[in-house]
C-alpha cells in the first residue's frame, strides 16, 4: 500500500527536556494504526508535529503523499488531509450538528450559505453512514454521538488521516463497537486512522500496526496481531509486572458493608452484596452499567429508591455524603480533575478539607499544629513526592495526585473505602504504587470496594469480583477460579 505519511528523524526539545528523539513513523493510506505510550512518552508532541502546531528540529523530515513538506503549518496540515480529534472533541455545544460538521465554511467574512452547510454535513454523514438530525444542537447529544459528529467534521474536511486521541475513554461497549465499525468504513474509503491511547485492548482488534513510544524514543512498530496487553505494557514502561492472584482468608473477618436489594430507577436494580473488613471487592462493568451510580448511592450523594445499606450491622439512611463520611465511608471519584481534587489550591488544603471540623480548636479556629501534623503524616505515610505542601495540587504528577486523593480520604479514618477507577490517567509504573497502598490498607483491616473497567485491575488486585450489567449484578467470581478472557466475555455479554 502507498505510504500516506512518512516521518523520519523527528526530534523535539522543550526547555532542557527531550520530548522526542529521532523518531520515525510511517502510516499507509487506509491503515489503522495505534500509537501507544505513557504520559510524557512524546505521543502528544508527535501529534503536534504532524498537525503543524510545532515544528520538528532540523534534520527531521516529513513526507506526505511522497512529497517532502517543510515548514508545516496547522492550515497546511489540514489542507493536506490531516485531522486530529482531541479527547475533548473540540465541538461547539451551542451550534447545530450541521454547523459543527461544516464549521470550515464559517472561515473568513461572507454571508452564511445555510443550504451549503446542510449539504456539506449531510454528505459527510452519508459517506460514513451516520444519521443524526443535522438541526439538533450538539449540547443535546450523547458523548458517543458527539464523537461521530467530530469524525464527520474530519470527513467533511476531506481527511486522509484521522488521528483520534483516547477515543474510547468514555464510551460504552456498544458505542465502542459502533466506533470500530465506523473506523473500518473509513479504512474502506482509503482514510488512515491513528488511535492514540494507553489502553488499546479494544482497538487492537482492528488495528494493523502498533507504534510504541517511551520517554521520547520509539520502541518499535509491531504487527498488531502479534501484540498482547502484557507485551505492550512491557514496551511502554520497560518493566514487567507480574501480579499474583489474591487469596486472603477472610472467613473470620467481620462484615463491614451489607447491601440488600438496593434499587434506584434508571441507575441500578436489586443489588445485594457484602464486603468484609480487609477485603478488596472488585466491581467491573461497562460505562453505564450502574457501577458509579451505585457507588454514589453508597456515598450518600444520590439516595436509593428501595433497599437497605448496613454498615457494621447498623442500618443507614444516607441523605448526604457528610453522613456517609461520619459513618466511615470514603469515596475516591473517577473524575479526579474536577471532583476528586481542587487543582489550583494547595496540597495541604486538599488533604485537610474533609477533616476541617475535626481540626477545630479554641475559638472555632483551625489548630495550626494539628493541621500541620495531619498533612505531614499522610504525605509521609503514602509516600507523596512533594517539595512544598503549599504548592497547588496541579503541580504534581497523576500518580501523586491520586495519592493526595487517597490521603484526604484516609484522614477521615474510614472503615469502607470506595475507589472508582482509581488508576485512570495514572502511569503504569505509578499504578503499581497505588495498588500497593490499597493492598496495605486492606491488610490493616479496611474494607475496600474497587470499581474499574480495566479487567486485569480487578482480577489481580481484588479478593472477589462482581460484574455489573445494565444496572444488575450479572455474576460473582473469585480471581483464582476465572480467567481474564472469561471475565471480559462476561462483561461484554
Amino acid at each position, binding site marked *: 500500500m502507498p505510504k500516506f505519511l512518512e516521518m523520519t528523524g523527528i526530534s523535539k526539545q522543550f526547555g532542557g527536556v527531550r520530548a522526542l528523539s529521532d523518531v520515525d513513523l510511517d502510516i499507509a493510506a487506509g491503515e489503522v494504526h495505534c500509537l501507544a505510550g505513557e504520559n510524557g512518552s512524546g505521543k502528544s508532541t508527535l501529534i503536534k508535529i504532524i498537525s503543524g502546531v510545532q515544528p520538528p528540529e532540523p534534520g527531521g523530515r516529513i513526507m506526505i503523499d511522497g512529497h517532502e513538506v517543510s515548514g508545516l503549518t496547522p492550515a497546511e496540515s489540514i489542507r493536506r488531509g490531516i485531522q486530529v480529534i482531541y479527547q475533548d472533541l473540540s*465541538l461547539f*455545544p451551542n*451550534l447545530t450538528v450541521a454547523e459543527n460538521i461544516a*464549521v470550515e465554511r*464559517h472561515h473568513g467574512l461572507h454571508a*452564511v450559505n445555510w443550504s451549503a452547510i446542510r449539504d456539506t454535513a449531510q454528505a459527510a454523514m452519508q459517506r460514513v453512514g451516520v444519521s443524526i438530525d443535522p438541526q439538533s444542537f450538539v449540547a443535546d447529544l450523547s458523548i*458517543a454521538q458527539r464523537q461521530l459528529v467530530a469524525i464527520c467534521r474530519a470527513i467533511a474536511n476531506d481527511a486522509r488521516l484521522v488521528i483520534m486521541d483516547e477515543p474510547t475513554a468514555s464510551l460504552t461497549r456498544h458505542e465502542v463497537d459502533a466506533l470500530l465499525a465506523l473506523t473500518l468504513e473509513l479504512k474502506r474509503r482509503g482514510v488512515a486512522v491513528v488511535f492514540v491511547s494507553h489502553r488499546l485492548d479494544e482497538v487492537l482488534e482492528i488495528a494493523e500496526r502498533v507504534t510504541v513510544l517511551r520517554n521520547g524514543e520509539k520502541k518499535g512498530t509491531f504487527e498488531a496481531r502479534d501484540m498482547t496487553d502484557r507485551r505492550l505494557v512491557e514496551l511502554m514502561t520497560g518493566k514487567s509486572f507480574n501480579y499474583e492472584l489474591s487469596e486472603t482468608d477472610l472467613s473470620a473477618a467481620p462484615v463491614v458493608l451489607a447491601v440488600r436489594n438496593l434499587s434506584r430507577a*434508571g441507575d441500578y436494580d436489586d443489588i445485594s452484596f457484602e464486603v468484609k473488613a480487609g477485603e478488596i471487592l472488585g466491581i467491573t462493568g461497562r460505562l453505564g452499567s450502574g457501577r458509579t451510580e451505585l457507588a454514589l448511592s453508597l456515598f450518600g450523594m444520590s439516595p436509593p429508591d428501595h433497599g437497605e445499606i448496613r454498615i457494621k450491622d447498623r442500618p443507614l439512611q444516607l441523605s448526604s455524603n457528610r453522613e456517609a463520611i461520619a459513618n466511615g465511608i470514603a469515596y475516591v471519584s473517577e473524575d479526579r480533575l474536577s471532583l476528586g481534587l481542587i487543582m489550583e489550591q494547595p496540597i495541604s488544603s486538599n488533604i485537610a478539607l474533609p477533616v476541617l471540623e475535626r481540626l477545630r480548636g479554641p475559638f472555632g479556629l483551625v489548630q495550626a499544629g494539628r493541621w500541620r501534623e495531619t498533612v505531614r503524616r499522610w504525605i509521609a505515610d503514602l509516600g507523596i513526592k512533594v517539595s512544598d505542601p503549599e504548592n497547588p495540587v496541579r503541580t504534581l504528577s497523576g500518580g501523586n495526585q491520586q495519592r493526595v486523593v487517597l490521603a484526604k480520604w484516609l484522614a477521615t479514618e474510614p472503615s469502607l473505602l470506595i475507589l472508582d477507577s482509581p488508576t485512570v490517567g495514572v502511569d503504569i509504573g505509578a499504578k503499581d504504587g497505588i495498588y500497593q497502598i490499597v493492598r496495605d490498607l486492606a491488610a490493616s483491616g479496611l474494607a475496600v470496594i474497587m470499581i474499574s473497567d480495566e479487567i486485569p485491575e480487578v482480577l489481580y488486585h481484588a479478593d472477589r469480583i462482581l460484574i455489573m450489567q445494565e444496572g444488575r449484578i450479572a455474576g460473582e467470581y473469585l480471581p483464582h477460579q476465572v480467567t481474564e478472557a472469561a471475565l471480559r466475555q462476561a462483561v461484554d455479554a
Partner: protein
Amino acid sequence: MRNALRRFGRTHEARLLLVTVALMIFLSFATKNFFTIQNALDLLTSYAFPGMMAAGLVVVLVAGGLDISFTAVASIAQYLAVLAANHYGIGWLGLFGIALAVGTALGLLNALLVTGLRIASIIVTIAMLNVYYGLLMFVTGGDTINSLPDWFANGLSWVVAFDSHQNPYILNMQMIGLVLAFIMTWLLLNRTSVGRQLRALGGNPEAAKRVGFNVLRLNMVAYGYMGFMAGLASLVQAQVAQTVMPNALVGRELDVLAAVVLGGASLFGGVGTVLGTILGLALLAILQNGLILLGVASFWTECFTGIVFLVAVSTIAWERRRQRLAIRRVIGTAA
C-alpha cells in the same frame, strides 16, 4: 415547518413571548390607553436607547464576553459629536461619523485590553467605565450642552397620520434607529460567517482557537460593534433629551444587561438571540408602562422590575438544570 415550530415551542423565547403577550392582553383590557398606537409609538421612542444598547450587548454576550463600559462610551461619543456639530458645520454625516467612530474606537480599545490582559471582561470593562467616565467628567467639568443644532434637534421625524383627535402619529429617528439596530444585529449573528464565529467562540473558546478562528479579531468585532451601537444610540438619546449631559447615561448599564439576560442570553457565552433580546426589553418596557397606566405610583416601578427579573432568572436556571439532568440520564442509560 411543524418541526421547527415544535422546536421553537421549547425555547426560552417562546415562553417569554407567551408572558409578554399575556401581559399585553391583560393591560389592553385593564387600562384605557395601553392598546393605542400612540402608546406604542411613545414606548418605541423612549426605549430606543436601551434597546439599541441591548442589541450591541447581546453580541458581546454571545461571543462569551461582557461589557459594562458602554454607557460611558455613549456619553463620550454624543458629547464629542454634538460639540463638534455646534462649532463646525459638519451636518448629519459628520455628526454620525464622529459618534460612530468614537464609539467604535473605544470598543476596540476594550477588545484589545480584554484579549491582552487575560482577566475577566467584567473587571476590565468596569475599570474602563471608570476611566472613560472619569476622564469625560474631568475634561468637560460636568458641563451640560444645552443647545443642539436646530437641524439635529428637530430632524428626522415625520408625521405619518393623525388619530381621531387630530393628534399626529410621528415616525422618528428613535424608531428608525431601534429597528435598524435589531436588523443589523440579526444579520450579523445569523447571516454572516463572522457572526457564527462569534457564537462558536462563546460556546467553546478552546475549540474556536483550534479551528483557527482569530480570537483577538473576533473580540474586536464584538466589542467594536458594541461601541458602534453605543455611538449610534447616543445620538438617538441626545435627540430625545434635547440636551447632552455627560452624566446622564452612566448608571444605566446594569438595566440594559438585565434586559438582555431576561431575553435568555447567558453570561457564560454562546447563548442569546435577537428575538429574545427584543422580548426581554419589551417585557420590561411593557411592565413599567403598564404600572404607570394602572396608576401604580412610579416609585414602585423598580421594585416590580426586580421581582420580575428575579422570577425570570430563577425559572431560566431551573429549566437549564432540569435539561442538564435529563441529558445526563439519557447519556447514562444509552447502553
